[in-house]
């Protein structure tokens, strides 16, 4: 048996991609710009090495338990010392594998996908930074360190969503992602400071102990947990902060794959899992997480039913699947949710890479201009089919296993959520196969002269690897080993792969999923049912879904009201410009309106300025006297 892995390896895991970022931006980009391929290779090498080290770390954690890593003192605040340290427990070890493996596949794929893009170097620099930040987040052992990487992950997604910044839509989407997630981050930051003021520590392990020991309890714990959850809601695009993720499609497709599978949105679920003891000891917080998650699952899936853009369907499906994970966390515990995160990472990355591969040939993401691609792109078709079956929850693919665990726990804990989740299963199967039939089935609808071809090997190979994982990753928990590793449940036998059907629940979910597939088959493949006719029959729903419940507009309205308060004259202007991303612009405009009012006071009149000093003195004195007479 090998000895425990040296702790330097854990540091290297997240430092390597950061190092690659530094090398690309400060060495390759300025001095070796004529050899852009180098930057891609450096990134692959760094992340590949991180992956190998992650495997080693995982092995070590499995055989010898959590690693203990010496801490370095970073900053001393009063009597509190913030240390730099790493926390390598089973949860972190699993996340490391997810992040490095998915990221590595995506980097390989990007070599071809981003070929000839003028921003090739910049792309890989940001990708390295993105991966490195996410790894740092996963390994952080205290809240301050975690928050630093949390913000870095947000910054990187801003940079990458806005990668093609010369497209106005991309720039707007990047801004929206950044600002909407910051709303949640605000809650997170307040929760961190609140926890610190209560406990005097930032250390995650200590906080776990305090929550378990009951030192931290009651309303205080609930508020802290809810604040933390607000951060997770923003990052994981849960209702009501979900609006940024569908717009984030404006980035390059591999970036979407990384955001959706392993980094940005996974960070939210990871955060709740990392601080799970805090949630577990507050029933109210647990219920909140479960309800928000369950609601988001069905809410997002309903919008996915009617989108015409492949990536938008996938985006809503991500929001919906993350909702499942939150439901799993809130209803039962850590293991089912992380297991679903683990499986989801592979099939969702695969779906995005498939979508990217399709658009590589057709030049579009609009499904109305696709069709019949199955013949021209057999590999893409086959892998996309596997991923769709997996996400729909068909036995024995990976999605089935983790979804079943969440459904089972929801049945036991949150019955209403269970029914919602069941409807979501139906919707998920339907919209995924709608995409599949519209894209790969039928005849090509995108014009006569298109030269359709399979993508290059560099893109196909990562897809094949991921499809193997999309089939098999779910088997890791058939014996309960995965859950046991994360500290929950017992280890059973392999016969569970069949005996699972002794219970009626798996049957029901399987049948519901197959019904969804059948409906999609009849509507979009055999055309026995007319999609138009159904759309018209249910036109109120259709409009509701396709307008995304008017959420973008709603946010606009909220802030318009604010503007009414702040400055009436701005309102007319806003109605005129009718900003699409109202939430963002609305907030800015409202504050600008307030600013303009104050700016009027800044007239440049010297007397007024002088007077202001005296008035200030009078007001301060006055308020003192006021306190004295009425309050003191």
């Amino acid at each position, binding site marked *: 048996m090998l000895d425990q892995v040296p702790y330097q390896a854990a540091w290297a895991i997240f430092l390597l991609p950061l190092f690659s970022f530094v090398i690309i931006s400060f060495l390759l980009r300025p001095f070796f710009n004529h050899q852009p391929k180098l930057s891609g290779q450096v990134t692959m090498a760094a992340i590949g090495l991180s992956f190998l080290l992650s495997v080693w770390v995982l092995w070590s954690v499995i055989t010898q338990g959590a690693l203990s890593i010496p801490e370095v003192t970073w900053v001393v605040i009063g009597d509190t010392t913030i240390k730099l340290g790493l926390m390598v427990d089973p949860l972190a070890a699993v996340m490391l594998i997810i992040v490095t493996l998915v990221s590595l596949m995506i980097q390989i794929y990007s070599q071809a996908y981003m070929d000839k893009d003028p921003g090739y170097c910049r792309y890989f620099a940001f990708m390295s930074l993105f991966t490195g930040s996410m790894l740092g987040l996963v390994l952080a052992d205290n809240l301050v360190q975690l928050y630093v990487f949390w913000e870095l992950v947000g910054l990187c997604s801003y940079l990458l969503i806005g990668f093609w910044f010369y497209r106005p839509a991309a720039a707007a989407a990047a801004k929206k992602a950044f600002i909407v997630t910051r709303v949640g981050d605000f809650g997170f930051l307040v929760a961190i400071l609140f926890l610190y003021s209560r406990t005097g520590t930032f250390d995650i392990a200590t906080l776990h102990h305090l929550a378990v020991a009951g030192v931290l309890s009651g309303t205080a714990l609930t508020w802290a947990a809810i604040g933390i959850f607000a951060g997770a809601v923003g990052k994981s695009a849960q209702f009501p902060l979900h609006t940024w993720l569908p717009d984030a499609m404006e980035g390059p497709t591999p970036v979407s794959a990384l955001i959706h599978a392993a980094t940005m949105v996974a960070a939210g679920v990871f955060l709740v899992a990392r601080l799970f003891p805090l949630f577990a000891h507050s029933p109210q917080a647990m219920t909140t997480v479960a309800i928000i998650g369950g609601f988001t699952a069905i809410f997002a899936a309903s919008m996915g039913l009617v989108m015409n853009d492949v990536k938008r369907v996938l985006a809503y499906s991500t929001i919906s699947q993350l909702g499942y994970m939150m439901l799993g966390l809130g209803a039962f515990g850590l293991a089912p949710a992380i297991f679903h995160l683990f499986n989801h990472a592979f099939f969702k990355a695969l779906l995005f890479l498939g979508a990217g591969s399709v658009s590589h040939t057709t030049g579009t993401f609009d499904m109305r201009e696709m069709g019949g691609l199955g013949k021209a792109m057999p590999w893409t078709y086959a892998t996309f089919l596997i991923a769709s079956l997996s996400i729909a929850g068909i036995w024995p693919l990976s999605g089935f296993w983790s979804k079943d665990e969440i459904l089972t726990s929801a049945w036991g804990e949150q019955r209403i959520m269970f029914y919602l989740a069941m409807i979501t299963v139906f919707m998920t199967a339907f919209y995924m196969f709608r995409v599949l039939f519209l894209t790969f089935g039928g005849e090509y609808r995108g014009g006569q002269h298109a030269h359709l071809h399979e993508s290059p090997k560099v893109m196909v190979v990562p897809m094949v690897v991921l499809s193997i994982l999309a089939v098999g990753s779910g088997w890791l928990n058939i014996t309960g080993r995965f859950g046991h590793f994360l500290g929950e449940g017992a280890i059973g036998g392999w016969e569970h792969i069949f005996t699972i059907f002794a219970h009626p629940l798996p049957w029901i979910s399987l049948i519901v999923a197959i019904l969804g597939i059948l409906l999609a088959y009849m509507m979009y493949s055999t055309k026995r049912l007319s999609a138009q006719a159904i759309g018209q029959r249910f036109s109120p729903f259709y409009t509701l879904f396709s307008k995304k419940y008017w959420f973008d507009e709603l946010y606009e309205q909220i802030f318009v009201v604010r503007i009414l308060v702040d400055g009436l004259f701005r309102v007319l202007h806003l109605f005129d410009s009718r900003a699409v991303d109202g939430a963002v612009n609305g907030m800015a405009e409202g504050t600008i309106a307030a600013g303009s009012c104050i700016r009027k006071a800044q007239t440049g009149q010297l007397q007024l300025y002088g007077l202001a000093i005296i008035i*200030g003195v009078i007001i301060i*004195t006055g308020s003192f006297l006021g306190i004295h007479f009425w309050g003191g």
Partner: protein
Amino acid sequence: MNYYLLAPEICLLCTAFVVVLADLFLQQKRILAAVGIVGLVVSMGLSLSLWGNGGETLFDGMLAVDEFALFFKLFFSVAAILVILASTDYVLRFPRFQGEYYALVLLSTLGMMLMAATRELISIYIALELTSISLYVLVGFLKDPKSTEAGLKYLLLGAVASAVLLYGMALVFGFSGQTHLEAIATSIEAQLVGRAWDNPGLLLGLILLVAGLGFKIAAVPFQMWAPDVYEGAPTPITAYLSVASKAAGFAVILNVFLIAFGTDLCFDWAMIFAVLSAISMTLGNVVAISQTNIKRMLAYSSIAHAGYLMIGLAAVTKATSVADFGPTGLIFFLLSYAVTNLGAFIAIIAISDKIDSDLIDDYSGMGRRAPLLALALTVCLVSLTGLPPTAGFLAKLYIFNAAVHHGLTWLMIVAVINTVISAYYYFRVAKTMWLGAPISEQGIPSSRPLRAGLSIACLGILVIFFMPGPFLNIAQTVVGALP
């Protein structure tokens, strides 16, 4: 008397004279900047040699030479060095008056050094005037309408503020019969009955001192001068005003309020500063959003930062100690703010000097025209916002923590909301630079001194983040040195 204790100041005074004299004979005016920097470096060396001498005083306790005073001497010297580096190109706008310019910068630095070191009301006032008068002239140095207007405004309003300050000092003297800060403290302790409002004369004096010094640090509602003056002044002087002059104001506030009023009165003035802090950061940040001129935007940002800094004055308790980390946080915040803001201004000087515009819209596409300058400015903006991995993040973390520690949770929440608002306008500049279309393809060449200054600032931002330990230790030593 040990004159060696005055060596840093004497050295600086001599350097100022040498610069004026050399200006008469030298053709190559760049040497003047070098002379100034050498003088400052020597003065820094002298200050360092005095570090750890156990806190001696001069002139019957008027002037202290302890870690607090020495720290600010070093602080102002570094700021002045960066400002001189940033000025080397800018002075070509008034080639005949370079000697006066550098000499005045050095003299105002001298004034600031004395401001931080004096422990007696009258000498505080004199030091403050030495600083201010040099700065009035420097603000109007460009002699164009805008600069002249700014200079005049600063002079007149500065005079009002001085009058207010003097009146406050007079009232405090009237109450205590003392001008030495420590003697005032003893006298107040002996005479004070009840809370502050039971002693109206002293209370009014206190408030007038807040107003007069609030003017120096550009705290709301004494900030009205700042945007106009910042916009009109030569940009290096704007940088100097926003960093060194503000720091000098805080040094005096720390001196006066912690030493003279550090007793029961602190409940009252801490409350004043808490409220002013909340108002300053909110007003500064909200108005900054609608600015189109980058210098004006940074003026409002500096008003907002006065607000963040005042959290350190709000979070104090009766017996000042190192564990009382409001003032420590203030010193640490000042350090981080100084490198960040100076860096931002140096980058702006480098860019604006070449494109001849201070409008944010004209910075469009700077990421492609001058990638390194844009990168440096972005780092500074990130630090001003207070995001990792920069000094600004740690500074905010520390000072917000101080607020929570002292039960000022509401102030912390206001500050965090403000940080979110400020992200909008700082990032708008970054967005314009990186995502906007360039107005022309012309590159932006920058001179070596500017690049050196900018590198020092950016390095400082990162070093403070990654190795905050020594800086926090210094901040603690500095606060601990106050009697």
